């Protein structure tokens, strides 16, 4: 694409009076290799290509895309998007000076995936298979899956902002099925980073085997506990799902702009303990949620959502930032060129407090400890959120006792945040395959030091 053709496309997009337009060209190639029944016996690849064209008129959006860069197809898409501004605009040609968006590369690739052979990937999966089987004689099946992809982006908008980015992502998931006395159960572990083939290290292998080993250690002894309201200690790492579901989504400023979030009028107010700081961060090197530049040309950054217990900032895209008269926070993201960008999280975590995890557990007479999760959900307006606990322990008289599993926990965002009464000093980012689905999928991550939530509703029997 030449600058002239980019300008011409922007001119068409603005031809009906739009205030702003952007072009998002994307080329992605992804590969999956899968192991089942001791053999690497399935492979899949996908190549996807296209351009998304967005036009804004105030806070209204026109969006269309083309799966080809044949001029007529792109022109048709630009005209479709232009219709959001249904005016007869003066015929002007767009020719803005290009401003290249400058950024620090948060995911430098050392070794391209394209140079890494299928044979080497096979070997890696096979070694994982063998290591998992050697963990426990009760394991009957192992499944493993290695995914890698690279997405090339070219962005240009009517402000003249221009950037190119190359976004890698690699993931590995290992699952095993165990059988004991006629009872079966399943455990899983995953790791994901924005990396090239240097992702596949010995230490990664050890880490995923260790995670799987932890997850199966009490699998047959674990039970669904007695349910009800109780104290919950959320262990370091994946407990960041609490932040993602309890407050993260409700801080996304499209909900604030529409006045539908329970936090809509809380900006600047004390919403939790002054020792709590919550961050949404695009700048962690190689992290699954890292982003050099967001999908509307705003440089990736670290955004304090809660600072010293005060609601410090919502997560903005260009539309909400303009609406509220603030700077965008680099949260305008999209699944692919097929989607218009909307405010989304990146890596969301809580900064360290000053307690120790041991002290927190010792302070609980009766409650549960949880640190392994699968999925969560939130209702933005009511603030009710949930997350599913794959495994954890009962806490009785300050000690971890019986293992528990497969329970849903439910709470209310503002109440749960205010109910965090202790924060440990062991913050850990969880590097599993976290994917957020808010109409469209985005890679994210989360993290947390161990915290004590005074009261949440825990699923279980009676």
């Amino acid at each position, binding site marked *: 694409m030449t600058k002239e053709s980019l300008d011409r496309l922007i001119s068409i997009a603005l031809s009906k009076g739009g205030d702003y337009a952007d072009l998002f060209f994307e080329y992605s190639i992804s590969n999956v290799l899968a192991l089942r029944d001791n053999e690497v*016996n399935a492979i899949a690849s996908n*190549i996807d290509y296209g351009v998304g064209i967005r036009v804004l008129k105030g806070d209204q959006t026109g*969006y269309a895309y083309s799966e080809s860069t044949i001029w007529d197809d792109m022109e048709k898409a630009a005209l479709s998007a232009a219709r959001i501004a249904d005016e007869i605009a003066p015929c002007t040609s767009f020719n803005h000076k290009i401003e290249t968006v400058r950024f620090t590369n948060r995911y430098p690739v050392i070794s391209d995936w394209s140079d890494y052979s299928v044979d080497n990937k096979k070997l890696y999966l096979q070694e994982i298979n063998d290591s998992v089987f050697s963990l426990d004689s009760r394991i009957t099946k192992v499944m493993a899956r290695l995914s890698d992809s690279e997405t090339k982006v070219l962005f240009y908008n009517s402000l003249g902002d221009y950037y190119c980015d190359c976004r890698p992502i690699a993931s590995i998931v290992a699952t095993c099925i165990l059988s004991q006395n006629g009872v079966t159960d399943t455990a899983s572990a995953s790791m994901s980073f924005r990396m090239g083939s240097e992702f596949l290290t010995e230490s990664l292998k050890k880490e995923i085997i260790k995670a799987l080993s932890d997850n199966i250690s009490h699998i047959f002894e674990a039970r*669904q506990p007695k349910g*009800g309201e109780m104290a919950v200690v959320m262990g370091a790492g994946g407990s960041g799902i609490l932040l993602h579901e309890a407050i993260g989504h409700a801080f996304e400023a499209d909900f604030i702009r529409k006045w*539908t979030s329970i936090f809509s009028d809380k900006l600047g107010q004390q919403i939790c303990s002054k020792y709590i700081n919550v961050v949404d961060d695009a700048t962690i090197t190689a992290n699954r949620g890292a982003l050099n530049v967001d999908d509307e040309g705003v440089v990736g950054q670290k955004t304090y959502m809660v600072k010293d217990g005060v609601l410090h900032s919502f997560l903005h895209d260009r539309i909400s930032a303009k609406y509220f008269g603030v700077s965008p926070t680099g949260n305008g993201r999209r699944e692919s060129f097929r989607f218009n960008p909307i405010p989304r999280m990146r890596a969301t975590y809580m900064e360290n407090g000053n307690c120790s995890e041991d002290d927190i557990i010792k302070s609980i007479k009766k409650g549960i400890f949880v640190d392994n999760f699968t999925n969560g959900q939130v209702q933005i307006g009511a603030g*009710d959120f949930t997350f599913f606990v794959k495994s954890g322990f009962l806490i009785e008289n300050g000690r971890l006792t019986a293992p528990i599993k497969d329970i849903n926990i439910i709470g209310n965002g503002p109440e749960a945040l205010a109910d965090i009464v202790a924060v440990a000093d062991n913050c850990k980012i969880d590097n599993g395959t976290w994917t957020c689905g808010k109409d469209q999928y985005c890679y994210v991550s989360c993290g947390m030091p161990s915290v004590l939530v005074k009261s949440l*509703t825990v699923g*279980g029997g009676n």
Partner: protein
Amino acid sequence: MKTDTSIAAAALQIALESGAQNARISISRGVENSVIVINNKIDRLLQSTDNALYIQLYIDGRYGSFSTNMMDVDLLRKFITKAARSTVLLAEDECRVLPDKELYYRGNGEDLLQYDSTIESIPTEQRIEDAMRASGEIFGTDKRLLLVEAEYGDMLDYNYTIDSQGFEGSTLQSSYTISADCTVRGRGDRRSEGWWYESSLFYDKLKIEGCSTIALRRSVDSLSPKTLKSGKYNMVIENTVSSKMVAPIISALTGSAIQQGNSFLLNTIGKKIFSDKLTLLDRPHLKGYAGSRYFDSEGLSTKEMNIITKGVVNTYFIDTYFSKKLNIPTTIESPSVLLFSKEKIIDGKNLSLSAIIKDVDKGILVTGFNGGNFNSSTGDYSFGVQGFYFEKGNIVHPVSEMNITGNLISLWNNLLYIGDDARDCAKWQIPSLAFENVDFSGM
């Protein structure tokens, strides 16, 4: 819809020239339009056309699946040649074969009423008018209403498949949807949300009127919810969300779960696992239903199946691969139009939601799920729920922040009633359901 299928034939030829003994090629093309209106003002206009080519290669007992939206023959040749080179590096898997040709759909089925040509000529102005109508129906009618988001959408979906054994089949489906989401201000900062949607394969059957009124009523009815004490309650699940408790059963009956041994329904064929009241059927050739079809993605002919009869499991969902793996006959990869037996359970009464609530007398009506999951190996589940507490057959107050927890086999053995109110617009025809003695956790 005019779609050039010659690219599929070209891709098949390239696949065979690249060393594949067999191959399957599918083309999918989707055209989608939507208009979103917020508080009577257009928020988004979206238009899209998607193309995808799926290539499945069977080379020397090895298997690879590949896809792209690049339809240029020269680029495809490079892509498929490289794909074939990668596929031969895999371990051999003798179960990776195309289906038995005798099982293919051979055409000549009656029209399943899946396509309405109106979709090809709806002007954008009409789409905007429909979305505005839905929003305008309630905007400004209730002071508590903070937001009404109404969306009109239509989609045209075309699929074409050929394989090297001579199978050729195509499907064309149109669909039209109107939906409304309402947010009303509740107690304190809390908002209450309500939604509704209507969908149809035919434009003139789309019920636009009333959609947002129902959404508003649902949001207002849910204001000021309470959390009940933990305990065992009767549970009625509304037809809008009842498929949540059926999906784990279907998932546990798939070939993949059975072969890997992570199914709580492993080794249950011919055994009575569930309540006598549960008879679950697949009727793939019902006309005008969104899930109806004559063949699956392998080209296998669909047929009527009684999945579960009076609690006895009759069949798994077995595609060609898992048929070979498990050495059992092929059935079909997944159900098409699921429905329950029409057997009446409450003598002399209809089985509407209100009739069921009256008969159950006291319990919790679940109208929405909030997260949760189930363990496919054990059948244990735990889901967040919201809805209404009812006594003497009447709604008393809304309920939120509660979980239901238990085991799916126990749950389905506590089945009280199966309604007759499945929504026509749903792919799976799952009506309202009632169960007794369900563990709810709350205060």
